[in-house]
Structure formats: C-alpha cells, structure tokens
C-alpha cells in the first residue's frame, strides 16, 4: 500500500513538471503582454501584476502592418484549408473505393511526397514565380500550402473512408441513389470527424507557417508570423511590449481551436501516422 502511495506522488510530480515545461513559455508570453513595460523588465520576474492594455495600444499605433498581415493570414488559412479539405477528400474517396493498379500506385506516390523537404523546391520555384510576376501574392502562398498538406490530408481521409463499409453505399445505390448521392448522403456524414481533424491540422500548419511566407512574400501578402519575426529582429528593449501583444494575438486562436477539437486532432494524427 505504501509503495502505491509513493508511486502516485511521483506520478503527480512528474505530471506537474511536464505541464510546467509545456505551458510556462506560453504562459509568460500571454501574461507579459498585459504587463506594463516597466513590469516586463522587472527583476525578479513578477507573477502578480496590474494588468494593462498599453502594449496592445502600442501595437495598434506603431505596427498597423501587423493587423494587415493578420488579415492576410486569416484569408490564406481559410482558403488553403477549404481547398485542401475538398481535393483531398475527393482523391481519398477514389483511392478507397477503386483499387486498380494505377490508383494504388498514385496513392503511394502521393503519400510518399510527404517526405519531400519543402525548402528544396524554393530554389527552382523562386525564379519561376519571379518570371511570372507571382511573387508576393496570396495565390502562390496558398498553392504552396495546399501542395505540402494534401499528402497527409489524403492519407488521413483514406483511413477514415476505409472504415465506412462499401455495402452501405451499394445498398443506397441499389435503392436508386446515384454514386454521388450515395457519397453525399451516406459516406460524408460518417467521415465528418476525419474532415474536422484534417481541417485542424491544415489550419494550424497554414496559420503558423514561416519558411514559404518568408521567402515568397514581402509586403502585400505578408503573413502574421513574418511581421512578428521582423519585430523580433529589430529588437531594442522597448519593442518587447508590442511583441508580446502580437504573439498573444497570433497564438491564442490556434491554441483554443486545437483544444476545442483535440479529440479529432489526436484521431487524425494517429490515423495518419500509425496506419503506415
């Protein structure tokens, strides 16, 4: 009995240490964004303080560009996610229901592209986009995000569609439904959880992505992470306030989103990885 008690204590302490490791960096960004600049630089760092919105006011006044970039991020994330979800669901349906050789081989090739290091294609694409006058447009950022996320998304959707028995669709088709109706009425509602997890993973990726946005955008279609990195780069003490404010604005929506749909996220991630 005594060892069981001791074990529980060790387990709880480990759990708390692990939570501190994960949450402390995030906690300090969020709380510091509500600290008066004088208190941000307080030594020792304070846990308790009078909250103020002064850093957010500074951000609005000094960095209007951040809010413009935030809008770009929102547009790019929304459009990319919708496209990723649509085209990967269609492809996954085809891969799950038709198994002739070309289909299987295409499915394999498509999933294998997930291994491709994204930075490698910046070299051939940069001169090409420059030639086509496509640099610094939302279009190419969306195109790149879709390209690098359809692979995982299709793989996850395949796993979900595989679990829907073909008999269900066939029964509907015998009753006179077309294949499209059978898909729409029978399969789609059953794979909705998969679509949620694909959307979460895709949205987190697009909202947070740095490398492509850094290389292929400049001013017009710049995204929020890039502006935050500019603020971080030109750091002379006083900038920390707006930096914490912008970081908080950038991180909170995704954190809340991920927590809200955590169940689906875990399911999607494990189906996409372990089924291999």
């Amino acid at each position, binding site marked *: 009995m005594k060892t069981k008690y001791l074990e529980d204590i060790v387990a709880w302490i480990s759990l708390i240490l692990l939570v501190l490791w994960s949450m402390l*960096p995030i906690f300090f960004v969020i709380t510091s964004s509500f600290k008066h600049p004088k208190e941000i630089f307080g030594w020792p760092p304070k846990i308790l303080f009078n909250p103020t919105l002064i850093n957010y006011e500074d951000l609005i006044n000094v960095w209007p560009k951040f809010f413009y970039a935030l809008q770009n991020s929102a547009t790019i994330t929304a459009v990319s996610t919708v496209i990723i979800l649509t085209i990967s669901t269609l492809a996954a349906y085809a891969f799950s229901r038709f198994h002739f050789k070309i289909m299987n081989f295409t499915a394999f090739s498509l999933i294998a592209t997930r291994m491709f290091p994204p930075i490698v294609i910046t070299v051939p694409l940069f001169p090409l986009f420059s030639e086509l006058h496509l640099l610094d447009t939302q279009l190419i950022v969306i195109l790149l995000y879709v*390209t690098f996320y359809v692979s995982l998304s299709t793989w996850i959707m395949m796993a979900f569609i595989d679990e829907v028995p073909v008999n269900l669709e066939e029964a509907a088709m015998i009753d006179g439904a077309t294949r499209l109706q059978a898909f729409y009425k029978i399969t789609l509602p059953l794979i909705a959880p998969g679509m949620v997890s694909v959307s979460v993973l895709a949205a987190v990726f697009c909202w*947070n992505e740095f490398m492509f946005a850094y290389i292929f955008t400049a001013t017009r279609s710049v995204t929020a992470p890039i502006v*935050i990195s500019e603020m971080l780069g030109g750091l002379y003490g006083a900038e920390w306030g707006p930096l914490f404010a912008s970081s908080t604005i950038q991180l909170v929506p995704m954190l809340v989103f991920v927590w809200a749909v955590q169940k689906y996220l875990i399911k999607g*991630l494990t189906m996409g990885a372990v089924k*291999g």
Partner: protein
Amino acid sequence: MTKQRLLRKEERLPLFLITPVVAILSAVLLIPGAWSFFLSLHEYTFGYDPVFIGLENYIEVFSDPTFLNAIILNLWFVFVAVSLEFLLGLASALLLSKKFPLHKVWVSLIIAPFAISPVVSVVAWKNLLSADFGFISYMFSLFGVSTETWLMDPVTALLIIVIINTWREFPFTTLILYAAITTIPVERHEAALVDGASKFQRFRYVTLPSIMTAIAVALTFRTIFAFRTFDVIWILTQGGPYNSTTILSVYLYLQSFKFLHLGVGATVGVVMLIFTFLVSAYYLRALYRQIMSRGRV
C-alpha cells in the same frame, strides 16, 4: 480481339476525382523537384540561363568546410533533438496512460506547444532566456550562473535551438505513442501480472513490444522533419554565431537567397533529398507493399 478503349468506363470517375491533387503536386512539387536535379548540374543565378558544368557544384560544396560542417552539425542536431523528443514523448505517453482525474485537461496542457508557431516559440524562449528579465535566467542567477552570452556562444546557441525544437515537437511523439499504448489489450497486462511480472518487466515485455511499430513510425518522421529544420534556427540565430547553427537548410538558404548561387542551392537540395530518401526507405517500402496490396482479396 478489339483493342480496349483507353479508359474503361468505370475507371473514369476515380481518375477524374484524383486529377486536382495529381495536377497540383506535379506542377508545384514533382516537376520543380526534377528541375532541382537539372539545376544542380548547372551554374545558375537570377536573370541568366543555366550553364552546364557537370558535377562542379558537387565538387564545390563537398570541398567547402562550411558545408561539411553543416552536415556534421545537422547529424548532431538530428541525433540529439530526436533522442530528447523521443524520451520526453515516451515518458509523457506512459504517464498519461495512467489516467489521472481531469485526464483530458492534462493532455491538452501537455500538447499545447503543438499549436504554437515557430516564431512565437522563439519569442517565448527568448523571453525566458533574456539576461535582463527572463524567468530561466533568474533561476540560473540564483545559482550564480549568467545566461548573458548563451546565444553568442556556438555550443550553447545550438543547445538552445535543440531545446526549443524539442519543446515544439515532442507532442507529436507523445500523441502517437499514447494512442498505441491505449490500444494494448488489458488482458496482456493481466496475464503478465498473474505470472508475477514486475512493473519494469511488464513495460519491457508487454508495453514495449506492442508499440514497436508506433515507435518506428514516430522516429522515422521525427528524423526526417528534424533534418530539414529551418524556421526556429533562422529566426533565432540566422545560422550564427560563426556558422555554428548553419545546418543544411540554412546553408541552402544562404547560398540561394543571400549569395544567389542557385545552382549550389539546388545541389544542397539534392543532398537533402538523398538523405531523406535513405532514412525513409524502409518506411516507404512497407508503405508501398501495404498500398499496392489494397483491394486484393
């Protein structure tokens, strides 16, 4: 026999459905990827036509100490970061499988870094490590240790990047291993208990063998993704101090977009592709067999 039509009727729909995905991947990934191989054999920069120079780019990079150093740093970085992520991921997965009260809350809090962008991760850790007001710096100062020069020192700078990377990426391993652990049938543990197995023996002979596939998958993916790390390094140190954090992706970026040697950049890209292929070959073979056998009864 009459020649079959190019496409049988029942093959039209699926090919039509996969067209968008295939088109976009070919245009943005496969063709540019092949073009990279082509460019690696050429002298090439913006505004000029590529000039064929054979293997000279390869000879150039493999005689550049910065590149050779980048390979060593890269392997060291991958080894240390993936090991730490794995240990932390396995430990947290085992811990979470204990089913604490408020279980979901703990899972949420532990996987939170998964939702944080690379740039905000750097902001968060730069804050903690700031010599003027950082929480970690304060803790160290209690023991008389100063963090002031950490980002300017080649060894500690790379270590900080390893730590930030571990922080951001370990939840992936946690989730995959946790999912695998929770699917182990209870009977197996019970049988081991009846046989009088100790806690460690149950981990060693029941849990571990049951999650080997998940471990292999997690390690493969983490190795490949850690190998190409760019964001955190570029935002924090831009490859410095003295190239001490210039791993291959940073070297590729500097060659291509700072020195405008696109041919050399493409060559580094090919080297990265080859490494990725070697590490993932075993996984890809298993995947190939699994997918090609689909639909066979």
